[in-house]
């Protein structure tokens, strides 16, 4: 304070006359120059006034469709290239381009939500089935109901797959392809351990086989069975819940705000039994893996048996596919409590949706419909071993080609009838985290399965507004 006052006094009393003149000159001459420069800078950096922007502005017949999609990139490169060529053919008078960002799975949801919350105009996005409810609830997705009605192709989808794109009775996404989790094994490793693959089909046989394989592979850098201990560990627990008739959530009346709403039901007897099976695996010496490489670890032969998605085939070179069945076996099921029980699996895959912020909705819809046309989509599915959601691909003229190319294609397709999907509700990410915590608690022996699931369900009930 004292110093500031001192400086002010110097200025006012003219003790630094020379400096004062400089200041005056500065404000009279230099300041004008700086002001002009500042104004130029402001104009340059302000998007709406920027001459650069004017130069970059598109002509009326020039359109760039923007998209955010999830890795791997190659599948989108192929799909967008073919679809864009057809779209351009439909609009010879227009110059159409696609500007798409391919993000890692973990970042895709976050980036899409952030972009849409910031009202960034994006025209097309890939939507994981479990995100649909959250995106639709937030008003981020365009309602495609009327467009799909006039499109008239909905009956060509398997009902489960078509319904997966519906939220609160409205269509928000088109399920482009799916995948199923199933059991993969290395034939030589099972042979060396004297394990009959058939024994892997039941819970008891699976545990027994784990011990045998562990004994024969010890010290070779190979683990017997893969058990997921990563953030998506609930996904590998759900099949055991579903195969016994259990559910993750179910509708219940008496919600304080919504009347009838979802209530956690995964802590049922079926859920407890399913979690007990995971605990038994840990007790049998199977280590939960906190790192997950989506099948690469199996392709690298670090595990003898792995329950993993059909995308695992993509980790083998396409040239190996012809002879893959000589080395790698596949049992189209998750182990069941006892022989004769019906198995279950989880279906995943990607939907395509149009954000509400899209500035090219009509053209984006046209592009989307081209992308899911059988002649455009089937070659991509064939190359990357994805499973179709449409009958014309799964059962029509393309089915033979897919069956000839993709190893175990028929077995994988047969699993679609065992497929279940996770609830696409806005609160799902938190519910999954509660379940993940319960699984971790059981893995580490911190709680018994019943206690862990009850505690998790209590938290999930709060998340769903039941408190």
């Amino acid at each position, binding site marked *: 304070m004292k110093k500031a006052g001192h*400086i*002010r006094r110097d*200025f*006012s009393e003219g003790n630094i006359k020379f400096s*004062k003149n400089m*200041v*005056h000159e500065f*404000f009279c001459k230099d300041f004008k120059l700086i002001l002009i420069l500042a104004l130029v800078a402001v104009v340059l950096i302000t998007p709406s006034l920027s001459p650069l922007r004017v130069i970059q502005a598109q002509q009326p017949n020039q359109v760039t469709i923007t998209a955010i999609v999830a890795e791997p990139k190659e599948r989108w490169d192929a799909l967008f290239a073919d679809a864009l060529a057809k779209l351009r053919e439909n609009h010879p008078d227009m110059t159409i381009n696609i500007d798409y960002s391919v993000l890692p799975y973990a970042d895709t949801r*976050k980036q899409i*939500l952030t972009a849409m*919350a910031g*009202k960034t105009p994006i025209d097309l996005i890939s939507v994981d089935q479990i995100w649909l409810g*959250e995106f639709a*609830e*937030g*008003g*981020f997705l365009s309602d495609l109901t009327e467009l799909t009605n006039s499109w008239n192709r909905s009956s060509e989808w398997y009902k489960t797959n078509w319904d997966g794109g519906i939220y609160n009775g409205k269509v928000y996404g088109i399920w482009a392809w799916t995948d199923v989790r199933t059991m993969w094994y290395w034939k030589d490793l099972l042979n060396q351990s004297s394990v009959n693959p058939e024994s892997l089909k039941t819970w008891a046989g699976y545990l027994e086989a784990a011990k045998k394989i562990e004994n024969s592979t010890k010290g070779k*850098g190979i*683990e017997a069975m893969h058990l997921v*201990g990563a*953030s998506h560990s609930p996904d590998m627990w759900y099949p055991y819940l579903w195969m016994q008739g259990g559910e993750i959530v179910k509708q219940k009346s008496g919600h304080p705000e919504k009347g009838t709403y979802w209530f956690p039901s995964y802590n049922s007897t079926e859920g407890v039994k399913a979690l007990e099976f995971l605990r038994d695996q840990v007790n049998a010496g199977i*280590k*939960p*893996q*906190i*790192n997950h490489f989506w099948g690469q670890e199996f392709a690298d032969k*670090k595990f003898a048996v792995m329950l993993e998605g059909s995308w695992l085939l993509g980790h083998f070179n396409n040239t190996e596919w012809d002879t893959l069945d000589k080395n790698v076996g596949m049992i189209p099921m998750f182990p069941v409590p006892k022989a004769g029980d019906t198995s279950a699996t989880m279906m995943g895959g990607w939907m395509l949706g149009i954000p509400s912020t899209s500035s090219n909705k009509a053209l984006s819809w046209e592009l989307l419909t081209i992308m899911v046309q059988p002649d455009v989509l089937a070659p991509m599915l064939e190359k990357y071993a994805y499973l179709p959601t449409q009958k014309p691909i799964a059962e029509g003229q393309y089915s033979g080609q897919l069956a000839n190319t993709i190893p175990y294609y028929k077995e994988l397709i047969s699993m679609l009838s065992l497929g279940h999907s996770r609830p696409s509700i*806005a609160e799902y*990410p*938190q519910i999954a*985290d509660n379940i993940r*915590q319960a699984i*971790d*608690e059981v*893995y*580490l022996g*911190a709680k018994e399965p019943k206690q862990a699931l009850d505690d998790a369900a209590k938290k999930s009930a709060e998340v769903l507004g039941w408190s």
Partner: protein
Amino acid sequence: MKVTLEAKTGRIQPYLLLAPALAILIGFLLFPLMWNIYLSLHDVSLTTILGDWKYVGLKNFDNLIHDQDFHTSLKVSLIFVGGSVALQFFVGMVLAVVLNQQISGSNTIRALFIIPWTVSAVITGFSFKFIFSDSFGIMNYGLAQMGLEPVAWLSDPGIVVWTLVFANVWHGTPFTVIFLTAGLFSISPVVYEAARIDGATKIKSFLYITLPLLRPFIIINLILITMWSVNFFDLILVMTNGGPLFSSTTSSLFMYRQAFEFGLLSKGAAVGFLLIAMNLVLAYTYIKLLRSQDKTVEIRQ
């Protein structure tokens, strides 16, 4: 008229000179802080962000106080920050003092020491994730070669936080080394020479010359590494994502997950506000400590 103009320009000149810095402070610090507080007093999630924002007062803070997971994250933060700061400072101090001796090649070694600090935390995280992998990591491979049992570095709740501390110390210690080395350079060799003539041993010189003269550097270093450790989450996110069982979920990671994984923006903002408060308290404590010690030295002198 001219005088009036000169007087006016004289009055506004300091403000004009301050304006750019103030604009940056307001735009990038004050506004986000106020926005964060505003957000923490409403009920906003990613699914309601485009709708009306419901004012809820201190409800988000109240929820946090009763959230067991948040309590756990505070405990984890305390261990992670305490362990990281203590080890980073101790190892950094030892290395800085050793490298300050007349050793050939000390400049090259100093330059090499900077490398871990220049590597991004994400890359550090991935590297250590592979090194400490329970089944296929080189650490457990080494233990097996020595006939020892493998250690669940990243999946044992009692060990995982110390694995993270180790990775953070590797990543952060070079900063302490460089910072304290700069402090050591500022101490005149004449002081040590005088002490040596007076019969002071090396240990006494360190305790009674180096440490007191290095105190401002030490305090600033402690403030910085403490704040960075409190806010640090990318390495943890990559290595463990907070697991198993929240045993490596620090408060900053808790905030990130609430806001960006679950989309609970207001809850995340409330945690963020508490973290800012925590940082301010820590910085204030360190500064008070510095000033009280300065006064003690003045009294002694």
